[in-house]
């Protein structure tokens, strides 16, 4: 009996396969290197543009003329070669691929480490580098070592102020930063049924922080319904009994709000233990927690109040932004004193807007708190949206209330 990775890749764990990809995507950062490598390979044409996506999200809009020139070249190439293209303001690549593009059973590669995110749809989705991507542009396929899988059993339901992000940080902490290197995570068990797609995307997004090649949910009724709204008729995937190299159990009612302390994603503490820690900035957004449900949760907590410190909110995509406008969520966020960013990665990668100054501390809903990542000498604590909202109102790390 097969794991989901084995089923999709069509071979047993440990085997090497060459596999055509259903979707391959790059962003404005990795796309530049991909284009350079593709040209260097002597390639004259794209293998199949219908499978290729160029999605600008990392530095949007461009912050200086060097970046603008690099983006210009990639934009022109994408258009002239008929690749799917999303310009500045369209949103984060992983989010766009998760808005009705990636379907169950597909093989998806992205030139970004968080390309494991759309595994939430029952796809095999993983990150590659720019040169691997250039070869995919040229040949339409790439090689994979079929990973062994770790079964993550979920039971019960999240309660109180705990969110999928708290569960994600908790499993990363349990596995460690390299606990799943070369392996795939499969989220299974009766506790998965109640998790909406947004939560599944958050859980799969953090898989790479354990070194995992992929994080996956089996497509079920929730997946089918979500994709139906996006115009796709898909079937659920039935899990089979299979051999996991390791199994972990999580009782969701036991999950509590936690924070990953710098500089490691796998070092967590209960929010309670850090309460009162002064903050300079709060950042809500990213491929981890910038979806509509996240913005709506944030708005519910800050509505009618004022944030005490600078708070940057960046919707994960244009669709998220539009939904937040339509429902009034955006009004609540702006009236609470938050600053809005262009849909995209925002300050997460520390390359343009919203970076930290020396000695500053940020509470972020993103997925990485590495040394100097958001600015030299700045420190990043990672939390859920509810913890970020409660903390923004107080100007210090604060325990979220039950909403």
């Amino acid at each position, binding site marked *: 009996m097969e794991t989901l990775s084995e089923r999709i890749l069509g071979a047993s764990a440990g085997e*090497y396969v060459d596999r055509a990809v259903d979707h391959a995507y790059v962003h404005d*950062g*990795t796309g*530049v*290197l991909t284009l*350079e*490598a593709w040209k*260097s*390979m*002597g*390639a004259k044409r794209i293998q199949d543009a219908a499978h290729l996506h160029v999605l600008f999200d990392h*530095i949007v809009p461009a912050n200086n003329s*060097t*970046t603008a020139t*690099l983006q210009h070249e990639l934009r022109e190439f994408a258009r002239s070669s008929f690749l799917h293209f999303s310009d500045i303001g369209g949103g984060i690549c992983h989010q766009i691929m998760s808005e009705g593009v990636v379907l169950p059973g597909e093989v998806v590669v992205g*030139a*970004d*480490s968080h*390309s494991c995110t759309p595994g939430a749809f029952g796809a095999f989705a993983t*990150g*590659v*580098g*720019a*040169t*691997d991507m*250039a*070869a995919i542009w*040229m*040949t339409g396929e790439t*090689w994979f*070592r079929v990973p062994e899988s770790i079964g993550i059993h979920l039971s019960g339901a999240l309660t109180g102020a705990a969110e999928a992000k708290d569960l994600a940080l908790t499993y990363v902490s349990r596995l460690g*930063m*390299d606990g799943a*290197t*070369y392996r795939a995570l499969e989220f299974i068990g009766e506790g998965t049924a109640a998790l909406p797609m947004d939560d599944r995307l958050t859980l799969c997004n953090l898989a790479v922080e354990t*070194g995992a*090649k992929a994080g996956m949910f089996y497509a079920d009724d929730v997946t089918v319904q979500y994709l139906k709204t996006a115009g796709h008729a898909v079937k659920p995937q039935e899990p089979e009994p299979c051999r996991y190299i390791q199994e972990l159990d999580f009782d969701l009612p036991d999950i509590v709000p936690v924070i990953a302390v710098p500089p*490691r994603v796998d070092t967590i503490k209960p929010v309670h233990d850090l309460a009162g820690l002064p903050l300079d900035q709060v950042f809500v957004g990213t491929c981890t927690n910038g979806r509509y449900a996240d913005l709506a949760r944030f708005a519910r907590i800050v509505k009618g109040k004022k944030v005490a410190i600078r708070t940057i909110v960046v919707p994960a995509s244009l669709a998220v932004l539009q939904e937040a406008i339509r429902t009034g969520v955006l009004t609540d966020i702006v009236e609470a004193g938050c600053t809005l960013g262009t849909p995209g990665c925002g300050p997460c*990668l*520390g*390359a343009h807007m919203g970076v930290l100054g020396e000695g500053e501390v940020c509470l972020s809903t993103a997925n*990485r708190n*590495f*040394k*100097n*990542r958001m600015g*030299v000498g700045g420190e990043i604590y990672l939390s859920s949206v509810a913890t970020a909202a409660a903390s923004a109102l107080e100007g210090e790390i604060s325990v979220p209330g039950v909403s």
Partner: protein
Amino acid sequence: MQGKGRAVCVGADIDTDLVIAGRYLRTKDHSIWVAHVFEDLDPSLASRMNGAVIVAGKNFGCGSSREQAAIAIREAGVVAVVAPSFARIFFRNAINVGLPLIECDLTCREGTGVSFDLAEGWVEAGGKKSVTRPLSPKMQEILAAGGLVNYWRTHG
């Protein structure tokens, strides 16, 4: 493929942000990456990279998929990186840009000579020879070609 160099010791879980920070990525000028390699880990490392074999702890190259990390290390003159394990995207990137990686748990002593033979599968440091985990045949082929660009120039 054979090689040798002097050991430069770094720790475990070195992420690619530490190899080359996000603030230096938006350029095609590789010399910028070479100049700032490992800056946020130890600013003195860049000047010691030429002819070095980096001997690291587990999970080298974790985090961001940025290929500039592997390019910066290779173009700084590093002969190979030895670690008990590598993050998988970095692993592919390094081979793709022609930077040899050796999976082996070595005790690192700064400045000692390290030599290796990828085909025979061993690494020697301080007079002690250790067996290494072999690269897949495909990866050996890519590395032997000098990276994936050259591989496809000849196979494409």
